[in-house]
C-alpha cells in the first residue's frame, strides 16, 4: 500500500517537473524569438554590413560555449540567453536586407518564416503529443552536424553551388531531427535538462532552419 502511494507520488512529481520544464522552455523561447526579431529589424533598419553576421555569430558562439554553461543554473543565465539570441537576430540583418532587395524578396522571407514555424510546431508538437523517446538519434545527429561543418568549411575553398544546396538541405533535415531529439529530452529526461540550455538549443534549431530555408528559397527563386 505504502509502495503504491510512493510510486504514485514519484510519478506525479516527475509529471510536474516535465510540465514545468516544457512551460518554462516554451515561454522563454517565445520571448527570445520576439527579442531576436526586434534586433533583426533594427539591423535591417541600420543597413548593417555583411561582416556583422560573422562578428555577431562569433560572439554568440563564444558566449554559448564559455558563459552559458557557467550561468545556466542562475538568474544571470536569462540575461545571457537574451544576449545570445539578440546577437543572432542582429546577425540576420545583412542576410535579410540582401533577400528583401530581390524583386520577390518579401515573399521569400515570409515563406521562410512560415515554413520554419510550420516545421518547428509540427515536429515539436508531434514529439510532445506522442511522448516518444527520440534519444537514440543523438549520435547520428551529432555525426551529421560534424559532417556538415566539414563540408561547409570545404565549400569556402571549393565554391560549389551544388554543394551549398546540399549543405542547406542537410542542415534542415539535421535540425529537424534535433527538434525531435530536444523535445523528447524535455519529456523523457526532465531531471537532467535545464530550461535555459534547452531554450538556446531549440532557438539554434529554429535559427539554422530559417537561414537554410532562406538560402534554398533564394536559389529556387533565382532559377525561375
Amino acid at each position, binding site marked *: 500500500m505504502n509502495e503504491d502511494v510512493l510510486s504514485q507520488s514519484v510519478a506525479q512529481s516527475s509529471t510536474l517537473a516535465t510540465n514545468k520544464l516544457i512551460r518554462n522552455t516554451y515561454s522563454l523561447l517565445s520571448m527570445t524569438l520576439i527579442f531576436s526579431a526586434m534586433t533583426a529589424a533594427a539591423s535591417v533598419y541600420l543597413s548593417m554590413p555583411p561582416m556583422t553576421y560573422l562578428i555577431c555569430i562569433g560572439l554568440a558562439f563564444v558566449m554559448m560555449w564559455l558563459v552559458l554553461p557557467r550561468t545556466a543554473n542562475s538568474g544571470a543565465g536569462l540575461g545571457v540567453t537574451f544576449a545570445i539570441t539578440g546577437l543572432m537576430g542582429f546577425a540576420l540583418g545583412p542576410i535579410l536586407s540582401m533577400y528583401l532587395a530581390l524583386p520577390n524578396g518579401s515573399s521569400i522571407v515570409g515563406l521562410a518564416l512560415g515554413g520554419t514555424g*510550420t516545421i518547428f510546431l509540427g515536429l515539436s508538437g508531434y514529439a510532445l503529443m506522442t511522448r516518444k523517446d527520440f534519444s537514440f*538519434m543523438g*549520435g547520428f*545527429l*551529432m555525426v551529421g552536424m560534424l559532417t556538415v*561543418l566539414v563540408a561547409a568549411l570545404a565549400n569556402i575553398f571549393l565554391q560549389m553551388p551544388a554543394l551549398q544546396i546540399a549543405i542547406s538541405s542537410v542542415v534542415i*533535415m539535421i535540425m529537424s*531531427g534535433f527538434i*525531435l531529439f530536444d523535445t523528447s529530452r524535455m519529456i523523457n529526461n526532465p531531471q537532467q535538462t535545464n530550461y535555459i540550455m534547452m531554450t538556446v538549443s531549440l532557438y539554434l534549431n529554429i535559427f539554422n532552419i530559417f537561414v537554410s530555408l532562406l538560402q534554398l528559397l533564394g536559389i*529556387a527563386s533565382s532559377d525561375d
Partner: protein
Amino acid sequence: MDMMSIGSAILLIAMIVMVAPRVKHAVQNSPKGSSNDWLLAGGLIFAVAVFVYALMKMV
C-alpha cells in the same frame, strides 16, 4: 580570399574543434533505436524534405 571567407573558415574550424568531443561522447553513449524507431524518425524527416521541396516550388 576575402576577409569574410577567412572569418567564416576560422569560425567553422572553432566549431569543429568544440563539437568533435561531444560527437564522440554522443556516439558512445546514445541508446540504440529499433528499426521501427528509425523508420518513424526517417519518415518524419522525409516529410520535412517533401515540405521544403513544395515551398521551393511555390516561389
